[in-house]
Structures are given as structure tokens and as C-alpha cells.
């Protein structure tokens, strides 16, 4: 059974062509969750989220309820919503921002109420011009409707939301870099400790940073109860989650699936989901959770889509992006391109990442274009080891943020899984797939 009967928690409205409008939103239960929340105490709302065991959807998978609870001791000043979605092959927040901005705003308002925050920033990736326009328009409508601003729905609770555009830098998805960027600086991640946003966040004040998809789940959770959410999925991986499927599949796209109940195989092959690999080709490898994640081979395709399950198998569910590579894919070229991405997107402040990413990229380029040497493989692994000592998973790091130790993932995976193909590149002085 590829797809469970689980309700569409966050994509329910997306079928309508006018899903982004206030009219459609209101006609389909929009802002009911907020109204409900406003009748509860902030603590009760937070409690529902805690019960739901809603894992953060931005990549790290930290339970939202736990994050908020840490802050109840230390009252929050700002809520910042992370809509920077730039992890390669991740395109689910894009969908939520463009197609259901009211759901996002409603979720944000619920979170703001639960945290008793009066100032929210929604950081939207700059390249989402349409998304920015949609969220801004929705926000204007929501203000006019009385859902945002002073004395929301007469509840006495006031909050201001500002839509903040990014300007094109992957690293600004990292929460502390995002805060720096929001302060008008370059997106240099801050060092944790001590700069955990919950302690020292925006302008040095306690700040909650949550992902767009995390926020979008809140209206349903408040309306249906945390327990209903927790009843879906399994273990810590509760509820449904968006999976962005791309690469060599017949139907790439974003699918909302109940967690754990579905496997990677289902996702790739089910007719209503990925629809299989084109041209009847075979699966060579897949990336289970964004390009920072180590790759899996066909032998792992039956793993369930669960955070702990994937973690135990040596990779991560990360941002929920799954990239499928068929048997005609050159693994050297694929991991070279991913390395090039990191080399371009390193913020450049710390040495191992700034210099290491560029070096690794140049070595990979050399191998792919036929100038590789056999000792390059050991060199690659050793240079990777100097960024992520031990090359274990989850990685250790010599860098400030996790971008650094993400660089080795694809290189190490490709060498471990396809060493022979590297050697062919070196021996034949070129790419056999060209």
C-alpha cells in the first residue's frame, strides 16, 4: 500500500486554482485554527503542538514543541519563519508559500500566540518573486480581515508580521545566518554555542526559528488536536510530511505522505507518486534527504520514510527531498556538481569550508574531465576528513556551521559506492558517460 488514508494536512487546499486567495482560504476552513487557538491559553496551544510531536521540517528535525518549551522559561521576543528553501532538489516550501500563503500566515499567528510574540518575520527566499508577492498580498488581506495586527479577532492579542525577502545565498537558510541576514549583514553563521537563537537570537534577543512547513501544520493540529496528529506516522515521526521527489522519475513533484508508513520504493515507484524510473531504467542510487545527506543504494530503497529509520541507516531525512539517479548517471559528475554547489555557497568565513570546498571541487572536476590521479581518491577522503573528522554520520566538524561537514557527504558516498567508476575515469582519462 503506497499511500495511506492519512488526511491531507497541509496540501488539502492546493487543488484549487485560487488556493492562495483569502476567499478560498475562508471557504475551506482558513483561520478556523487561529480562532480556535485564540480561545485557548497560549500554554494549551503549545501543549497541543508538543503532543503532536511535530518534528521541524527545515532539516534538523528538532521537535517544535520542545523548542518552544525551552523558551517558555526564557520568554521569546521574536518569531522568525524560515522560508529560504535553497537545499538542492527541495521545493516543498516553495509550493506552500506560493499556493497556500494564508495557511502559512495562520500557522505563524498560532505560533506567535502560543509563544506570546508580537513581532514576526517571514524570511522568504529572494528568488521566489511570485511567492513573495503572494505572501505579501495574503498578509495585506489578512490585516484587512482582522487576522493580523492589533487585537486579532477581538482577542486582545496583537502581532505584526513582516515579509522579508532574501537576496540569494543558500547559507541564509541556516538559522543563525538567517538572523544575521535579517539584521542587514552578510549571512555569516554564528557560532553555537553560545549563539543558539533561543538564547541569543535576532538583535541578541531570544528567538524561535521555524520552517515554513512546520508552521503550516499548526492550523490542523490546533483544530484536530495534537493527539490526532501524533496518531499518524510512527514513533517520533508523526503526522504527514512533504516529500519533494526529483531526478530520474516519471512524475517528479511534492507529495504529502504519512510518515514511516511509506517507503522510498513506494515514493519512487507508486503510480500515484513517482511513477517509476523513465525509460525502464534501473535505480542506481538515491539521495534520501537533500544533497547534504549521504547517498543510499538500491538495497536501501525499502526503508520507510521516517526520521529515525533513515538516521539509523546512516543518512538523514533532512529537508525531505529525494533525488533519484538511474543507472545511466555518472556518480562522479553528480557528486562534482553537488560539491560545486557547496563551493559556491560556502559563506567563506571559516577556513576548512571556504578553502576545502573549492579544493575538493577542483579535484572532482579534474577527475571528471580526465585529469584525475589514483592518489586523488585518498586525497579527497583525507581532505574531507579534515572538514568532518572521522567521516562518520552524523558528522563531526572543524567548521562553524553544518554546511562544512555537508560537503563530504556526496563525495564520500560516491567514492564508497562507486570507486570503480572513479578509477575508470582516471584510467580512461575521461567520463565514460560522455
Amino acid at each position: 500500500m503506497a499511500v495511506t488514508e492519512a488526511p491531507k494536512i497541509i496540501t488539502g487546499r492546493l487543488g484549487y486554482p485560487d488556493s492562495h486567495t483569502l476567499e478560498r482560504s475562508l471557504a475551506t476552513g482558513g483561520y478556523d485554527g487561529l480562532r480556535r487557538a485564540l480561545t485557548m491559553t497560549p500554554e494549551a496551544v503549545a501543549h497541543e503542538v508538543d503532543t503532536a510531536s511535530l518534528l521541524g521540517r527545515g532539516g534538523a528535525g528538532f521537535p517544535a514543541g520542545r523548542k518552544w518549551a525551552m523558551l517558555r522559561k526564557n520568554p521569546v521576543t521574536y518569531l522568525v519563519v524560515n522560508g529560504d528553501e535553497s537545499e538542492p532538489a527541495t521545493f516543498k516550501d516553495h509550493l506552500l508559500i506560493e499556493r497556500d500563503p494564508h495557511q502559512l500566515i495562520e500557522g505563524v499567528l498560532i505560533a506567535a500566540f502560543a509563544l506570546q510574540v508580537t513581532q514576526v518575520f517571514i524570511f522568504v527566499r529572494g528568488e521566489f518573486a511570485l511567492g513573495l508577492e503572494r505572501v505579501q498580498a495574503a498578509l495585506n488581506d489578512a490585516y484587512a480581515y482582522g487576522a493580523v495586527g492589533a487585537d486579532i479577532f477581538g482577542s486582545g492579542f496583537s502581532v505584526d508580521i513582516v515579509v522579508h525577502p532574501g537576496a540569494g545565498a543558500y547559507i541564509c537558510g541556516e538559522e543563525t545566518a538567517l538572523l544575521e541576514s535579517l539584521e542587514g549583514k552578510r549571512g555569516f553563521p554564528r557560532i553555537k554555542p553560545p549563539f543558539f537563537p533561543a538564547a541569543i537570537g535576532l538583535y541578541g534577543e531570544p528567538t524561535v526559528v521555524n520552517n515554513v512547513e512546520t508552521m503550516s501544520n499548526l492550523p490542523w493540529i490546533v483544530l484536530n488536536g495534537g493527539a490526532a496528529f501524533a496518531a499518524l506516522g510512527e514513533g517520533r515521526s508523526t503526522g504527514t510530511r512533504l516529500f519533494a521527489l526529483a531526478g530520474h522519475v516519471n512524475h517528479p513533484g511534492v507529495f504529502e505522505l504519512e510518515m514511516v508508513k511509506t517507503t522510498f520504493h513506494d515514493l519512487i515507484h507508486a503510480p500515484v507518486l513517482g511513477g517509476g524510473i523513465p525509460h525502464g531504467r534501473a535505480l542506481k542510487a538515491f539521495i534520501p534527504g537533500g544533497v547534504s545527506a549521504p547517498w543510499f543504494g538500491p538495497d536501501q530503497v525499502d526503508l520507510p520514510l521516517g526520521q529515525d529509520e533513515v538516521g539509523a541507516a546512516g543518512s538523514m531525512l533532512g529537508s525531505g527531498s529525494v533525488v533519484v539517479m538511474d543507472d545511466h548517471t555518472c556518480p562522479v559528475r553528480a557528486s562534482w556538481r553537488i560539491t560545486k554547489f557547496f563551493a559556491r555557497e560556502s559563506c567563506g568565513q571559516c577556513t576548512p569550508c571556504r578553502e576545502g570546498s573549492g579544493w575538493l571541487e577542483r579535484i572532482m572536476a579534474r577527475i571528471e574531465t580526465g585529469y584525475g590521479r589514483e592518489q586523488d581518491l585518498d586525497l579527497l577522503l583525507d581532505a574531507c576528513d579534515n572538514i568532518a573528522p572521522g567521516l562518520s554520520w552524523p558528522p563531526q566538524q572543524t567548521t562553524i556551521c553544518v554546511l562544512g561537514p555537508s560537503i563530504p557527504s556526496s563525495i564520500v558516498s560516491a567514492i564508497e559506492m562507486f570507486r570503480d567508476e572513479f578509477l575508470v575515469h582516471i584510467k580512461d582519462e575521461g567520463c565514460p558517460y560522455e
Partner: protein
Amino acid sequence: MSAEAGTPIGSPRRDRGSDALAIRHLSTDTLDQARQVISLYPEPRSAFIPLCHLAQQQDGWLTPEAMRDIAGLVGVTPAEVLGTASFYDMLHTEPVGRHVVAVCTNIACLLNGAAELLEHAEASLGVNAGGTTGDGSVTLEEAECLADCDQAPCVQVNHRFVGAQTPASFDQLISELRTGARSEDIPHHGTLVRVRRSTGLQADPSLVAAERAAMAEAQARRTEAAEAAKTAPDGARGSS
């Protein structure tokens, strides 16, 4: 034009007020919008990126004159404006064409022919990625993932998605751009958000002031409470 003595270059304006330098380049409309945007944030500097977008909307790119104005508006030095802006891919500190055409070649697109599309684009436009065509109409960019991976290979023009492209549809797109046939859905480079904020803070400044004051008061109360909690004996903390 007045030869205002102004503040000497490199003077330590940064720690205090902004807006000290005379604004010379930004138009009245841009400046109006800029001031509105600044008012949305607790600190003027936070408006840095939105202000850069506004300046690009006016000029198509971030001119040195605009950067000096922004420095004055947010209270940093021009070097800091250049330094910060050059960190971000979307902020162009060199002139670009009217249309910035970005072809994603990251993994999902690569697996679907992006490298070949980019090669075609370079050949048909006669420029390498990063270059601008002689007529100034198109700047070609090799982009990182644009988060539209089910539309691979993915292309954006001035940050508007134009769907998956083949070499043929790409050429068609370029000629439409050149003839202006797409000017409805694709504004000239730099125009990011055409929807302006119409409510909220902008609508009622007194409300804003009140909200901000209430926030500040709440913050002060929290700090006080936190201080009190710190000094209170251990037992008292648990009971609350």
C-alpha cells in the same frame, strides 16, 4: 547641488543615527518606499536587503550612487554596503541586462539535461554564463537550485519561473523577451515584489507606536522577572 560638508568619509556614524548623509540618487518614490520599509524593523539596518531590491528596481542593478544612499539610510559605510551586497547573488553590483536568465544546473536539473540546455543557451546567446548580450537585453546565469525541480531543467527570468525548457522553447523565450511580449508577466530586472504592503504598520503609525511601546514594556517586565528569578532563592523558582 550643494557641496554639503556632510560627515567626513569614514566618520563613525554607524553607532548613532542614520540618514545623516544627503540622499542624492534614489528617487522620491524609491525613498518613500525605503523609509516605509525601514519603519517596519526595530533597527534600520535590517532593511538592508529590501532597500537593495528597491534600488535595483529603480536602476536595474545596484549602482555605486545607490549604495552610498543606502549606506546613509541604514547607518553603515559604503564599503559595508558593497561588502554585504556582494555576498548575495541577487544583488548585482555590476550592470546586468534587462533580463537576467538563470538556468539551474544543480543536481535535479543536471539529471534532466540542464548542462546541455546551458550549453545551448551560451551558444545561442553568444555569451558565457555570467555574461550579458551585446544589446543589453539578456544576462545569462548558471544558477544553483531554484526550488522548482519538477520543472527540470528549470529556468527563471528576473526571478519569474518560466517552466522546464528545451533548447527550442528557450530560443522562443528569448525572442519573446527581446520583443517585449513577456513584459506583462516578467517585469524588467530588479522588480522583485510588485505587491506593496498596504496595511498594518503603514496604515496606522500610532498603533505601531503603541504596539512597539507595549512590546518594550513587556520586554522590560520579562527582563525584570528574569532578574528577580535569578536573585530569588532556588526554591521559589519551582513553585511559580
